[in-house]
């Protein structure tokens, strides 16, 4: 094995690959080869660093230099300047938005300062396609400890004491879930990993599987040992090709090393993992629907009880956990329940991974201790709102969650606090909205999603959500009435109470929380037929400000429907009846004479 003097870590997550990080890797390898440095400098493709906004990321070890937004053309300069001459390339370093200084070490960036990485501990650090790197970093040690030094009961006790709760959204205590599955006797039991990540804008599970697949496999084996299961299944959506590829490689390698399969570590414990592909239906994230889908049935939920722990996959006791939940398990075993429970809040222990998206400066993946406030996440780690606009709301919990507003900014984020303010943790998507987002349109967007994803089995969800959507559509078109607001409220509550599964029970949440926090916006739409954010096209009028108009006729010439009239050097006018609100005139006007009201 070559003794490398330096290592170049390049992000190989989906985000950075989309910005050609694989070309950067090829180019760096080529440059090192031609400069005779291939034996001294190693190029490693890692999982996601989280700072997707500034991707592709290239990190240099051991001097810990963090290059952002690297292009394949920069590879030669990195090799020539940094590696050969030891000079950092200033223009590729992260620039602090406040001080305008270049920062080379990621530890000093606001984005990383407050983060604590447990589930993401190996993402951006290890080569996910190489089991040896994982083993070199205590990989499978936790599994070994459990198999040889602890009884299944002790493992469950450890997980219970750690206070780990399901990261898929429900927040159910993981140790308790394992205990239920362990208590049921059967000739065959199963461990299922739920990798059906469906919330719009959420990508934490994908990143964990892409960046650290072995952690999940190891945790599943531990769970198998604790609950008495010998088979593991990962239900993953087919839209995650890179995660699937890395999982397949990881499973093959683990079998090859005897860390999955029969008689693991000579303990008579057998455990193997297979993949099951989902077609990307949102409802299949619900565990009963997921199990039906794996059995080849339609992905429809059934009433609980019986819980999967009693009767799951093929009627056998099955324990279903989410990817991020599993990713925490090896760390808990290695470092102890006490360590884990020292992080977080009273009832929510550990950390949570969030996917920051929307109108925020630092789009990306973050992991913070439970109890971190929304303000810290949005303004410190997230770097605030894009283009200096005003913060309006954060949508947490995906289509089942709710919108949190300025008054919630100082709420410490944990499972119970989010529910108390009318939203939920969900799987951890956070979509940030600014003053240009209309909250009625936002809830319409989410309803559109749930209507599309409803499996159709129960009437409240199939019919109710469709009606909700229609009412919202009516309001955004300017035809709403005060009675519609009452109707929205009533219908939402009925759907919540009567729908069969989690999807239906939570789908009205965006409506209820926006009605509660932004009622004035709904009223404005209904009473004044105005949309202050300027997002609902049908409620906008394009007008020409006479004072600014010089009569250049540019707008009239560009208007596709001939809605603008006026003589040369005379003030022009827009006919609202003809105007299709395409915005072409605004783009063309050099005198700021056209605006939307």
């Amino acid at each position: 094995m070559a003794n490398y003097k330096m290592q170049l870590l390049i992000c190989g997550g989906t985000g950075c690959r989309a910005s050609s990080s694989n070309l950067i890797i090829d180019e760096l390898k080529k440059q090192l080869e031609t400069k005779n440095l291939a034996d001294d400098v190693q190029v490693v493709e890692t999982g996601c660093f989280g700072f997707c906004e500034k991707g592709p990321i290239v990190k240099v070890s051991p001097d810990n230099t963090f290059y952002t937004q690297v292009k394949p053309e920069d590879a030669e300069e990195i090799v020539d300047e940094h590696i050969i001459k030891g000079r950092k390339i200033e223009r590729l370093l992260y620039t602090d938005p406040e001080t305008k200084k270049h920062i080379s070490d990621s530890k000093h960036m606001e984005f990383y300062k407050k983060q604590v990485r447990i589930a993401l501990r190996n993402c951006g650090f290890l080569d996910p396609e190489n089991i040896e790197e994982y083993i070199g970093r205590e990989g499978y040690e936790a599994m070994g400890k459990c198999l040889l030094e602890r009884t299944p009961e002790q493992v469950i006790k450890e997980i219970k004491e750690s206070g780990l709760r399901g990261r898929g959204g429900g927040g159910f205590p993981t140790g308790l879930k394992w205990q239920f599955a362990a208590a049921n006797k059967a000739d065959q039991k199963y461990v299922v990993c739920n990798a059906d990540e469906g919330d719009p804008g959420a990508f934490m599970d994908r990143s964990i599987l892409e960046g650290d697949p072995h952690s999940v496999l190891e945790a599943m084996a531990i769970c198998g040992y604790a609950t008495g299961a010998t088979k593991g299944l990962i239900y993953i959506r087919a839209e995650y090709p890179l995660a699937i590829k890395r999982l397949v490689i990881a499973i093959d390698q683990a079998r090859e090393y005897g860390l999955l399969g029969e008689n693991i570590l000579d303990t008579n414990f057998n455990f193997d993992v297979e993949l099951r592909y989902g077609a990307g239906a949102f409802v299949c994230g619900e565990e009963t629907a997921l199990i039906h889908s794996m059995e080849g049935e339609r992905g429809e939920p059934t009433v609980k009880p019986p819980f999967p722990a009693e009767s799951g996959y093929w009627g056998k006791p099955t324990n279903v956990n989410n990817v991020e939940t599993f990713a925490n398990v090896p760390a808990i075993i290695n470092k102890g329940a006490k360590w884990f429970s020292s992080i977080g809040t009273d009832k929510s222990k550990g950390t949570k991974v969030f996917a920051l998206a929307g109108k925020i400066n630092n789009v990306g993946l973050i992991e913070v201790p439970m109890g971190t406030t929304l303000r810290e996440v949005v303004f410190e780690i997230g770097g605030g709102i894009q283009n200096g606009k005003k913060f309006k709301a954060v949508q947490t919990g995906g289509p089942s969650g709710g919108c949190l507003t300025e008054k919630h900014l100082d709420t410490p984020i944990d499972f119970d606090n989010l529910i108390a303010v009318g939203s939920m943790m969900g799987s951890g998507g956070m979509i940030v909205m600014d003053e240009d987002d209309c909250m009625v349109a936002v809830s319409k967007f989410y309803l559109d999603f749930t209507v599309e994803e409803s499996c159709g089995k129960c009437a409240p969800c199939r019919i109710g959500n469709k009606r909700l959507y229609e009412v919202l559509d009516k309001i955004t078109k300017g035809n709403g009435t005060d009675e519609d607001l009452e109707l929205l409220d009533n219908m939402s509550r009925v759907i919540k109470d009567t729908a069969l599964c989690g999807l239906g029970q939570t789908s009205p949440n965006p409506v209820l929380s926006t009605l509660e926090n932004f009622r004035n916006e709904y009223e404005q739409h209904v009473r004044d037929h105005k949309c202050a954010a300027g997002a609902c096209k049908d409620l906008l009028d394009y007008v020409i400000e006479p004072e600014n108009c010089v009569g250049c006729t540019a707008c009239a010439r560009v208007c596709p429907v001939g809605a603008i009239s006026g003589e040369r050097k005379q003030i022009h006018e827009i006919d609202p009846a003809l105007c299709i609100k395409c915005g072409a005139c605004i783009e063309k006007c050099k005198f700021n004479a056209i605006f939307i009201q």
Partner: protein
Amino acid sequence: MFKPKEDRMAKVKSLADLRKMKENLQSKVHLREKADNPEALVQIKVGMGTSGIASGAKEVFNYLVDELEKRNIEAVVTQTGDMGYSYAEPTIEVTLPGKEPIVYGYVDVKKADEIIEKYVKLGEMVDGIIPANYRTIEENK
């Protein structure tokens, strides 16, 4: 799909096996772990501008990396640009945790050995120190 390759490492048969394997494989990720917390370790910078390399800085650099590992000393060895002491190449800067950096000149493999044995291990000064004759930007503020 799964094809066992004969040239691969044998199966892990026990926890002891796994731990032994970890010891052997640690070096693969060690460089990165060290990079996460360099302040707590011995840091050595080797001046590797053109004049440094021409005077043999590369050999010294390789020697330091290999020897520190052999002698079980946790250290971060990095290369840096020309330090300006062209008359005294190769030059290296050694920073022990919590101490001021010290620059040594005319460092060949023999000198490097002495620096590891005396200064790094025991904290004893070694001949060949170049006194700091500059101020950094921070100090000048």
